[in-house]
Structure formats: C-alpha cells, structure tokens
C-alpha cells in the first residue's frame, strides 16, 4: 500500500509542482504586494498597510474602469446571447445547409482576437470599409467610433458581441438538440401555437443552459483585454474605453505601480471568485443531465 501512495504522488507531481510555483505562490505574493507601495525598482519593499485599498476606493479611474467593464460584460451577454438564442431556434430547424450555417457561426470564436480587432478597426472606419460605403450611399457623415470618448467603448463592445453571438448560438443549439422532438409533436397535435411552445416547453427546458452560458459568458467578458489593447489602448482619452484587466496591465507594466496594481488584482479575484462559485454550482447540476457524467 505504501508503494501505491508513492506512485500517486509521482503521477500528480508534475502538475502539482507547477501549480505550487505558478498559481498558489503568486496568489499569496499578490496579496502581500497589495499591502506595499512597491514600484518594481526599490530594493526594499515598503509596507503601507491598507493604503492601496483606500486609494482604490477614491480613485475615479478605478470606478470608471469598473463601470466600463460591467457595461461591456452586461451588453455582450444580453445582446449577443439574446440574438444567439433566436438564431439557435432557426439553426434547430430541419433544413438542408444547416451544417454550413453552424460552421460559419462557430468561426469567430476560434479567430485570434488580435487579428479580429484589427479588421474591425477597418470595418468601423468612417473613411474606409463597408460602413463607410453605407454612409456614402445615404450621404451622411460617418460615425468616428475610435476617436470619440463616448463611442470607443461601444466599438469594443461590438467586437465582443461579434465574437460571442455565433459561439453562444451553437451552444444553445446543442441544448435544443437535447430536447425530445416528441414533446414538440405532441404539443402541436394539441394545437399549441409556436409562441406557446416556446414559452411553455423550450424556455423552461433550456433554463439550465441559459443560466450556465450567461454566467460563464459574464466571467469571460469581465476578463476582456485583447480587444482594448489592439483597438483603443483605453483611449481616445484614457480611461474612456479601458477595461479592468487593461487597467491592471497599464498600472503594473506601464506605470510600474506593482503594489497598487496588486490591490486591483486582489479585488478582481474576489469579484471573479464570487461569480465562479455560482457557476460551479449551476454547472454541476447541469452536467448530471449528460450521459458521460460522473459524480465527484
């Protein structure tokens, strides 16, 4: 029996060692740094108590960035997933060419965000790209998304929606596939209208999937970095379009405020942790419906 214990340790050793070095230790170190005023350069790390956290509460940039991030996350989840659900209802109909539609829908999710953000700079440009053709045809002056403080964040949101819609629709479609078609047929025989079928059958049965996708999509959206880094760098006037992670990156690696950035990191962890706990609860419940499910 002793020997098997050693074998167990050997099997988990490579991953566990890396977790210890690159996850557990950095977490503790982050928390420690968040109580310091360190700037990457001082030979001595000076501890300042909760000063960073006090500063954070009074920091206008922090609240602005948190607001931007929540607006981004809520818009992407509601708009993209709302459209995706409608799209999924159409993807679920038995028609030829459906596999083609599904393939196209999934592609943005696989596309490198940096590359997608670059082409979107062109697409939204008022002087070149398809939107400019539209403006030209109607004869109006184009909207300057990226040079407007009010609209730059919406440019970022548009790209976020484009990345999410297709993926979410495939996910919803997979959920719809799991609903027994006999139920629909029975409802139709009973003379139920399409709207009644949607409200009384489809929505209730899809609730776990919808909840799950909303929560995981929300967490993902909270972490948005690439689109901002490539399209706006938080501009045109910082922090007009900065998101939380972009702000964290800027504070740490542009302004070299390691201590203050660590306080932001700890607050971010608490936010994400809360939402993730909720997600795990929901996903476990949802997983048990699958065939290949196992209990921990």
């Amino acid at each position: 029996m002793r020997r098997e214990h050693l074998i167990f340790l050997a099997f988990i050793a490579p991953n566990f060692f890396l977790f210890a070095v690159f996850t557990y230790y950095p977490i503790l170190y982050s928390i420690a740094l968040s109580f310091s005023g360190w700037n990457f350069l001082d030979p001595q790390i000076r501890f300042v108590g909760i000063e960073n956290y006090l500063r954070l509460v009074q920091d206008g940039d922090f609240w602005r960035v948190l607001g931007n991030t929540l607006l981004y996350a809520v818009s992407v989840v509601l708009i993209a997933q709302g459209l995706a659900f409608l799209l999924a209802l159409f993807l679920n109909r038995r028609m030829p060419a459906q596999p083609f539609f599904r393939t196209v829908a999934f592609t943005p999710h696989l596309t490198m965000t940096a590359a997608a953000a670059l082409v979107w700079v062109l697409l939204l440009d008022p002087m070149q790209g398809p939107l400019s053709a539209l403006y030209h045809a109607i004869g109006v002056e184009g909207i300057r998304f990226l040079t407007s403080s009010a609209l730059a964040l919406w440019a970022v949101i548009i790209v976020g929606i484009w990345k999410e819609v297709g993926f979410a629709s495939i996910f919803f479609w997979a959920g719809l596939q799991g609903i027994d078609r006999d139920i629909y047929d029975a409802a139709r025989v009973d003379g139920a209208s399409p709207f009644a079928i949607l409200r009384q059958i489809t929505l209730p049965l899809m609730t776990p999937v919808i909840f799950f996708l909303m929560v995981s999509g929300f967490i993902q959206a909270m972490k948005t970095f690439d689109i901002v880094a490539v399209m706006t760098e938080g501009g045109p006037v910082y922090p007009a379009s900065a998101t939380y992670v972009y702000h964290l990156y800027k504070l740490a690696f542009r302004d070299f405020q390691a201590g203050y950035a660590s306080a932001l990191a700890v607050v971010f962890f608490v936010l994400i942790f809360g939402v993730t706990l909720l997600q795990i609860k929901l996903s476990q419940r949802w997983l048990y419906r699958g065939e290949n499910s196992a209990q921990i």
Partner: protein
Amino acid sequence: MPRFNREDILSYIVLVTATLLIGLPFYWMLITALKPIQEIALYPPRWLPGEIRWQNFSEVWQAVPFGRFYLNSLFTTFSTCFLQLVFAGLMAYGFAFIPFPHKQVLFFLVLATMMIPEEMKIVPNYLLLERLGWVNTYWSLIIPPAAQGFPVFVLYMWFRTLPRDLLDAAKVDGAGHWRTFWLVVVPASRPMVIVLTLFAFVNRWNDYLWTLIVTNKTVMRTLPVGLAYFKGTQEGGDHWNLLMAAALLAILPLIILFLLLQRRIVEELPALHITSNR
C-alpha cells in the same frame, strides 16, 4: 419535405443574414489582403479588388520578422499543448484510480486553480520569471501555462466513466499504473484527448496578455503580439493590405483544424464547457 413553406423561407432569410454579418470581417480581411496599396484608401471602398495582388502574401514575410513570429507560435503552442495533456492525464489518472489518504483535499486544491483568473497572477509571475532569468525565453512561454486545472477536471470525469473491467483486466495481466495509463486509459480516452488538445491549442495560439508580459524582444513575440507590433511599424500602419494578409495567415491554422475536427467538436461541446476556459 420537397416544397418550401413560409416558415422555411423566413428561416433562410434569418440564417443567411446572420451568416453574412458574422462572415463580413473575414470577407473584408480577404479582399483587403488582396488589394494593391492604392486601392486601400479609396472612398467609397471597393467590394471587390480591382486588381488582385497575391504578392501581398509573400511580401508580408519580409516586412516584419513574421516567419519568426509564426515559428514561435507553432513551437510554443505545440509544446504547451503536449505537456498540458500529459501532465493533466497523469494527474487525473492518479485522482481517479490510485488510492491515497484524503486525496479529496488535494483534488479540491486543483479545482481551486480554475477559480483563479490568470490575469490576477501577472505581476508576481513576471517577477518570478525575471528572477529565474526566464523573461524573453521559450521557457516562460511554454512552462507556466502547461499546468491547467480544467483538463484535469474533464479527464478525471471521463476516466471515471471508463468500464471497470478494462482496468481490472490490465491489473490481472500484471500491468502497473504507468503501463495501464499509456496502454489502456489513454487509447480509451482518445475522443476527449483530441477535443481537449484543440481547446488548449486555441487558447495558446490566440493568447495575447501572457506573451506581451513575459517577452519584450521582437524575436520572442508570438503571432497575436506580433500582429499588433506590425500595426505599430511604418510598414504595417499604412499597409493595411499586408496587415490583413498577416492576420489571415495567423488565423488560418485554427480554421483548418476546426474544419477537420468539426463534427467531434460540435458533439462534445455541451459536455466540455463546464468551466469558462474559452
């Protein structure tokens, strides 16, 4: 159903419109990549290039160290995916099949890693890598992302569904855990391994933040950061045709991989997106 009814026509209108909107950025990438430089700034823009210029795709390799970015991306992505799957497989096997006192506690520690956003660790990990002398090396691009909780969790769930007889038979044959893992469990898990590899591949290939932080020399950049760098150079900033050719070449491998494995992904998708590793 041979004839179309009203609902079908409506469905096609919706689906075709959605497809056009979702596909528009790809179309624009392609036609911009094929235009000569004079056509880029035309107003209103051309929906088809007046002159198709295939040379853009060869010139992009000379404009920046694009070849180097590509090799860096390929090498680090393949290495990390390989290590990630092997390490996760071994760990999941340990938790699923080898007895150890109170191993649920250790398993909880592994699950906990999934709740920690990568973004939170960037400052301390940068400092650590700097002390190790790993900044601007392949080590920093390959090793830290190799340990992930997500594939451990998924493989653990999968292993638990494997028929018990399979493992007992291996035991009767006198196979130890090492041989059982490689000769029985891994082959029986092929579908899940393929899907997890693809997900790891997508994650690493497209990753921006980590590369941006642990490298600052141009020769060590990978494709996503390289593209942004290209835009900042004089050649990239004005030459949208070259920039779009580069973007297209960067997204191509994943799209091809997806088309090859498409059926499997769509089948496994619901079972797989248990956590937000996407």
